[in-house]
């Protein structure tokens, strides 16, 4: 085998990381944005007069759902156009880890934040006078559902921009990839779970006798439940940081 320059290995690992980031990260939001669109279509089919209102809610929900793949795109572009001259081998493996972290995180967050968006479109089509509380619950739920992808983004940036250890060996190479897997896949469950909680909060408000009064109570219970569901993503963040910093 001919001698391959370190720069070329680092560059090819970064390209692989960029592809994983946006390739995996785009799947979830692609499905999720379609779910909101489908619910809006069903709603407009039932109530054609509501079309402009539902169209607006659909776009708001879809815009929020598009946030995670935007993070993935940013990481992808940074990896594609990084500087590789004089890079160390560890930076290539860290770039691959960064791609896995944001890719897997954005995948799940795209699906998770679509649940409340899709349910809000359906709920507003049936009970148009309650559009304000439903929109509030949707946006709050989406925001919480996207917390894990922020952790993923943080770990990705740390992996990309931390100063590289010059004496890093095989163990460190594996540790940075492991940190990416840990945070990326660790973000999946909490994102989807929080999205499901927000979806059901909207269903709960619909079933209440006086939905305007129920929103405060339901928001509190939803946030409490989501906070507990987020705890595992914080464990994943801790383990990823230990793998990056201490190893």
């Amino acid at each position: 085998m001919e001698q391959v320059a370190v720069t070329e290995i680092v560059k090819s690992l970064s390209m692989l990381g960029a592809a994983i980031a946006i390739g995996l990260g785009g799947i979830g939001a692609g499905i999720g944005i379609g779910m909101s669109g489908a619910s809006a279509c069903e709603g407009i089919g039932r109530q054609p007069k509501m079309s402009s209102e539902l169209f607006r809610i659909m776009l708001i929900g879809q815009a929020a759902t598009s946030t995670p793949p935007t993070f993935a795109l940013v990481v992808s572009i940074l990896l594609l156009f990084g500087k590789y001259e004089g890079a160390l081998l560890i930076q290539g493996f860290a770039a691959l880890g960064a791609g896995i972290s944001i890719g897997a995180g954005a995948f799940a967050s795209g699906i998770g934040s679509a649940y409340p968006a899709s349910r809000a479109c359906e709920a507003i089509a049936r009970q148009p006078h309650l559009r304000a509380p439903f929109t509030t619950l949707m946006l709050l739920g989406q925001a919480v559902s996207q917390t894990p992808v922020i952790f993923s983004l943080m770990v990705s940036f740390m992996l990309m921009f931390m100063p590289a250890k010059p004496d890093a060996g095989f163990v460190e190479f594996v540790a940075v990839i492991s940190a990416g897997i840990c945070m990326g896949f660790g973000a999946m469950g909490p994102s989807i779970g929080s999205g499901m909680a927000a979806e059901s909060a909207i269903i709960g408000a619909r079933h209440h006798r006086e939905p305007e009064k129920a929103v405060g109570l339901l928001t509190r219970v939803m946030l409490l439940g989501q906070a507990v569901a987020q705890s595992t993503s914080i464990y994943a963040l801790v383990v990823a940081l230990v793998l990056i910093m201490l190893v």
Partner: protein
Amino acid sequence: MDGITGAEIIRAAALLGAGMSMGFGAIGPGIGEGFAAGKACEAIGRNPEEAGLLTRTMLVGQAVSESTGIYALVVALLLIFVVKG
């Protein structure tokens, strides 16, 4: 590639195992706890008088569901700090 000792391979495998343990181990509890929170919200919507009881039940269910996440965390920390090559 030369220069990789057996001890390094074991250490690297332990670190990779730590990441996979916590990463995949977090999926189940995250989805499960979110599901429990959602069902509690639905039930409170139908029956708001029982909000306190439902919130308590939700938290107990989530705490039990959390246990596998904590197992994953413990295993990950053991793999990082206890397993030496």
